[in-house]
């Protein structure tokens, strides 16, 4: 049984290494995430962010500009998730005093 697991793990590792090697290299303008127009014909989001993040938000860190400005709804949801988790722990673990 151990040999089967080892073979499975080795196979998965080989698949992972193969997939990672198929990634586009850094800065490749032809990479799918950098295309100005997506395959469906709509404007590509990644291209817009790279071109306009600094000018729009005055923020050199593009990741921060996307996280907190373009996709701020998503970040608001994440904050609510953290808050809800905390409130749930607070309500469940707090000792009830009858």
């Amino acid at each position, binding site marked *: 049984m151990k040999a089967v697991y080892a073979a499975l793990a080795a196979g998965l590792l080989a698949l992972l290494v193969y997939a990672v090697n198929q990634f586009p290299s850094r800065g490749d303008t032809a990479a799918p995430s950098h295309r100005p127009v997506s395959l469906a014909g709509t404007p590509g989001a990644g291209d817009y962010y790279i071109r306009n993040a600094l000018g729009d*938000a005055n*923020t050199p860190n593009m990741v921060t500009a996307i996280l907190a400005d373009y996709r701020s709804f998503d970040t608001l949801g994440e904050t609510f998730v953290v808050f809800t988790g*905390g409130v749930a722990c607070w309500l469940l*673990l707090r000792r009830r005093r009858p």
Partner: protein
Amino acid sequence: MRSPSRSPIIVVACRAIVPVIQLVALYVLFHGHYSPGGGFQGGVLLAASFLLIRMALGLEVAQLQFPSRAGAILGAVGVLVFAGTGIATILGGGNFLDYAHLPLPGFEAAARRSLGILLVEVGVMIAVASIITVIYDELIQSERDD
């Protein structure tokens, strides 16, 4: 729960390390515009400094630094800072969380958006730091009551 340490080495080391962690947390938050970082990372670092004091010196001493009661309230305050920024942009005439319409006279649109990002990150940091501390406190308290 583990009893708080009486070893002077641990106590002194914590007193030396905790301010550094908090300073790095603020740096990570405010330098998030230029380098990797932001509200979540800074908040977790701030919470780590609170938890270090709680683990080393015990919950009672740690109340002097960050009271357990303040945790739940500050968590809500952090979320409200985030959502309030969105409401402020609506009052300024824009869409929800469209920082270009923050009601701040004398700023260009790009500067307002930069400031809006900072406001939001501060809210995230307050929420994350206090919520992690709340969860830790409640776990400790519930274990102690049994």
